[in-house]
């Protein structure tokens, strides 16, 4: 059975006919071609599939799109505005916070939500906010540095 979904994705009103049991992750990747959202487990354990739903981080592998009707979804593809990178994207690239880059989209979005609530988070607060996002490459050091740098730049 298919249903008509009408979320706002990255600022666009979207209409998509998708099987009812497909997760938001699958609809984003397979129906909308937004493959920037990644997956590492599809069981809610790794944080790789994080997107923002009305500004809050959610695990898209656990979410059914019906729960997103009429709501605002932000994926990594929607972070840059008019070709200008989000400060987090800029600092992640500059500081080497993306090694293989596979965890990067999810972490960028989780960090974006953090900075919106807490523009100058302590290192500890960043650790807590990103605790649900595994990264196997970086040891998190450069990720924490990059979030701090983006916060500092935004605060200027």
């Amino acid at each position, binding site marked *: 059975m298919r249903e008509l979904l009408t979320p706002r994705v990255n600022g666009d009103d979207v209409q998509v006919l998708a099987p009812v049991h497909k997760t938001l992750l699958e609809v984003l*990747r*397979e129906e909308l*071609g*937004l*493959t*920037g*959202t*990644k*997956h*590492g*487990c*599809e*069981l809610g*354990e*790794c944080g*790789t599939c994080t997107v923002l739903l009305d500004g809050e981080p959610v695990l898209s592998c656990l979410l059914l799109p019906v729960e997103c009707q009429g709501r605002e979804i932000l*994926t*990594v*593809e929607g*972070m*840059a505005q008019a070709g200008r*990178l989000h400060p987090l*994207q*800029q600092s*992640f*690239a*500059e*500081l*080497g916070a*993306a*090694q*293989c*880059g*596979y*965890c*990067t*989209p999810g972490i*960028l979005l989780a960090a974006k939500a953090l900075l919106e609530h807490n523009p100058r988070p302590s290192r500890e607060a*960043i*650790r*807590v906010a*990103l*605790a*649900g*996002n*595994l*990264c*196997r*490459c*970086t*040891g*998190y*050091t*450069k*990720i*924490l540095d990059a979030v701090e740098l983006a916060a500092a730049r935004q605060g200027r």
Partner: protein
Amino acid sequence: MGPVETPPRRAEELAVIGKRLPKVDAWGKVIGETKYADDLILPRMAHARLLRARHPHARIKAIDTSRARALPGVLAVITGADFPPVKFGILPVSQDEEALSTEKVRYVGDAVAAVAAVDEETAERATELIEVEYEPLPPIMSIEEALAEGTVRIQEYGDGPNIHKLVSLEFGDVEEGFREADLIREDLFYFEGSNHLPMEQHAAVARWDPDGKLTLWSSTQTPHYVHRTLAKVLELPMSHVRVIATPVGGGFGGKSDPFSHELVVARLAQLTGRPVKCTLTREEVFYAHRGRHPVLMWVKTGVTRDGTIQAMHFRSILDGGAYGSYGVASTFYTGALQTVTYKVPRYKFEGCRVFTNKPPCGPKRGHGTPQPRYAIEVHLDKIAEALGLDPAEMRRRQVVEPFSKTANHLTITTCGLEECIDRVVEASGWREKHRRLPPGRGVGFAASSYITGAGLAIYWNEMPHTGVIVKIDRGGGVAAFCGSIDIGQGSDSVLASVVAEVLGILPEDIRVVTADTDLTPVDLGSYSSRVTLMMGNAAKEAAEKLRGLLLDAAAKKLEVSPAGLVARGRRVYLRDDPERGMSFAEAAQLAEAAYGTLAAAGSYRPPRRGGKFKGAGVGPTPAYSYTACVAEVAVDPETGEVRPLEIWIAHDGGRALNPLLVEGQVEGSVYMGLGEALMEEQIFRKGLHKIPSMLEYKSPTTLETPEIRTILVETNDPEGPFGAKEAGQVPLLPLIPAIANAVYDAVGVRVDEIPITPEKVLKGLDQKGKGQEPRVGPERFPRVSFPEPIRVESAFGQPADLSLKRE
């Protein structure tokens, strides 16, 4: 393009190398544009799923696929019978794998059949409709069982019924060394296996064109070996197979073997006439495995009163799982590098790899060396304590000589380990902390070494290990082509940086084209920390040839000698008169007019410097990297929990081509080492994987990862491009023993078994409370009938012979 630098006065200064530049592929990664294998969606693409065995060991009696075939939406169902009867394996000596098992399954997760269907769910449902009749065989699940079992065999080859490989080598007379020792110590250690847990699950897409050509996109670290395997197993000419490695979302060694899903999608694409994709689930990644070998170890060392090592005898037994994989190399690696960190004048190694009914083990970051490194560094800590010596100082006095040979005929070039030790001792406040912190707090020290690329290719051949082609177009655009694959370590950036440095432009001016067997020269793969040094040298050679043409053409125009020119800051100009010159693009046009299309190739083959004995192929490398580490931990005596507080790590990776990337490798290695030291383990219950999910398989999050203080100690190695050595593996090695030694410093408990779980710490504390030996770890080393050792004269202390250059 960014601002153009004004040409500096001193042209020999490096413009790109050594700078903290962003990775060239970072931009695509931060906007979600990088296409990993599972992101590929081709028109009419079908989806494949594998049916995997639920028995650890069983004979396949019959497979009935009729119900699966009848399911609407199913396009093809295949079994092992749909492949030529050809086995494969990464090493020529262990060709024991099949695309789909035909006679037997050897571990839970072994693939027996596969389905292609219009979507993944239909494919999954169809696999459930395949009926396999099994005759269960007794499973062999441990080292002890494998050594004891004489009739039931997992594989039909090897050095014993379930022994894959036996090795025995002696360099110099160890007994003589023990006689000269004041103290002889023997210890037993066990290191549990672990998975790489890359965030990206393996995926592959195949397309078969009507002209009989196959293209495979795959998240692989070794496209060249996948290329060879596809041709072999599908009985195709290699020239008709194209393998494109997609950017790898984490490998750590886990994507270095050819895998059955890669062969299966190729066959299914041929049968269905559609592109076919297969993405492993997380559970399947645990089955594909090739992770850290569980290793049981025994070590005996004789030292004089000041801690000088006289002789060392090391034994290891590796639990290999069901197939060969890299296992023969892994076995040698558990013994080969013991001599490269400290001076070991006489050395004996006996190694054994057994088959068990578990997912095959293979190379994981550090390949075969973290286990012995852990054992030896804890063992030396105990020796230092017995002698009343400072463990860091005792080791510092015994660091190998630069440009010397080891007992087992390995050639050391540069070695910055002494400085690494000094720097971490200093930075961590080691002298004030060791044996002086309050109860429950402790520091531990350890050091390590690792190869910068294996000296030999996996299959014997005379060809280069890597090649690079650089081409320059009329607008000054530069493209660099290499078969290397970026797995996050930054190989694309190294390629661009080396070419940019030589040609006097910036990495962002260069387009890199990598890991496509149709377009790029062969690179053997992203394993054994080989890419920076080998590809870097090849890239340098190719770029230098082109720079020569550019300078010649520019010199003619400027009516000067080419020797007086430099290429830098996107210009070619006179060294002594920087105003006189021209743009890079102009020089390129002059050169093209003079010499024709501008393209040049470079290639690299490592020097042949190993010994002349059987088994000498594992261990040699152009250069060894070094690391020293101090870890500080807090141990909770109530829960047994070990919390790493801070890590100081100093790394000699030669010249850091890009310090940002080198630090990233060090930090990532520290992280991965911490996971292994404290929590990660791939373990089994009655043939079943205990933890095939991320929920159960614990790995460190931001909260369990402490601050990592990275110190780069730079040597300038003559073998490396601009002096560079390895960075991605050696820093993992000392972490694990440093944690173990820190736990001992904190609570006086020796956990001689990895991971150091709270239960083990509590057990040790309990024993300590009862006045028993506060040690948790293996109690005995099983009897193994090691062969008589191959006896070779020790080469310890001989000078390095650098005249044996690459041919």
